[in-house]
């Protein structure tokens, strides 16, 4: 099992770098994971990350990109609920990459 080290603490990850325990996540871990993905986190990124964590908290799954896009549009407005905006923030995919930074598992059905 792989692991990452943040602030002197070790956290378990899977072979693709996703956190094994959702409860391990905190802002610092999120920032570290973003660095490994070469994503510089802005307020707009955090908006999506926090949204994902709330979604997971409520439904116990990471949403499919299509579902995330629609839900973001509903909550944060249509200018943010579209794939151009979300892929602009997370070039490797708002599903895969944003979920990883948010400490969530890979979305179901995502290869």
């Amino acid at each position, binding site marked *: 099992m792989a692991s990452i080290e943040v602030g002197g603490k070790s956290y378990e990850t899977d072979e693709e770098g996703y956190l094994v325990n959702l409860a391990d996540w905190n802002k610092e871990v999120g920032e570290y994971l973003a660095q490994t993905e070469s994503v510089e986190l802005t307020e707009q990124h955090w908006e999506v990350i926090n949204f994902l964590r709330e979604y997971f908290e409520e439904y*116990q*799954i990471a949403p499919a990109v299509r579902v995330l896009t629609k839900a973001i549009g509903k909550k944060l407005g249509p200018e943010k609920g579209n794939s151009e905006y979300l892929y602009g923030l997370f070039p490797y995919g708002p599903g895969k990459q944003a979920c990883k930074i948010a400490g969530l598992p890979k979305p*179901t059905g995502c290869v």
Partner: protein
Amino acid sequence: MSDATVKKFMFVNRKAPYGTIYALESLEVVLITAAFDQDVSLVFLDDGVYQLKKGQQTKGIEIKNFSPTYRALEGYDVEKLYVERESLEARGLTEEDLLVDVVVLGRAEMGALMDEQDVVLSF
């Protein structure tokens, strides 16, 4: 997408959650197939109605509680959930015991609905 490519898919859920893996497997397949824009219905029959029982607390058995995920189905455009009335009654349950909005059908109506499907997947 043209109508010609849309088929009627029905997932028939007949197993209680946790005791076997069927309920969770079915739910995962439903979430994945939701991406294909088909006409999807979920049916809960027999012990399958227990999947939708409110108030599941799985801490004591150390298995993930996947019941909140049924409430995510609406966001996946899976909105046709049917529960057989006779199955609910045999378990001392009512519609108020369920954690999502469903349509309750008698067995005759359920049978007719099944007959209309192009594909039926049983779990």
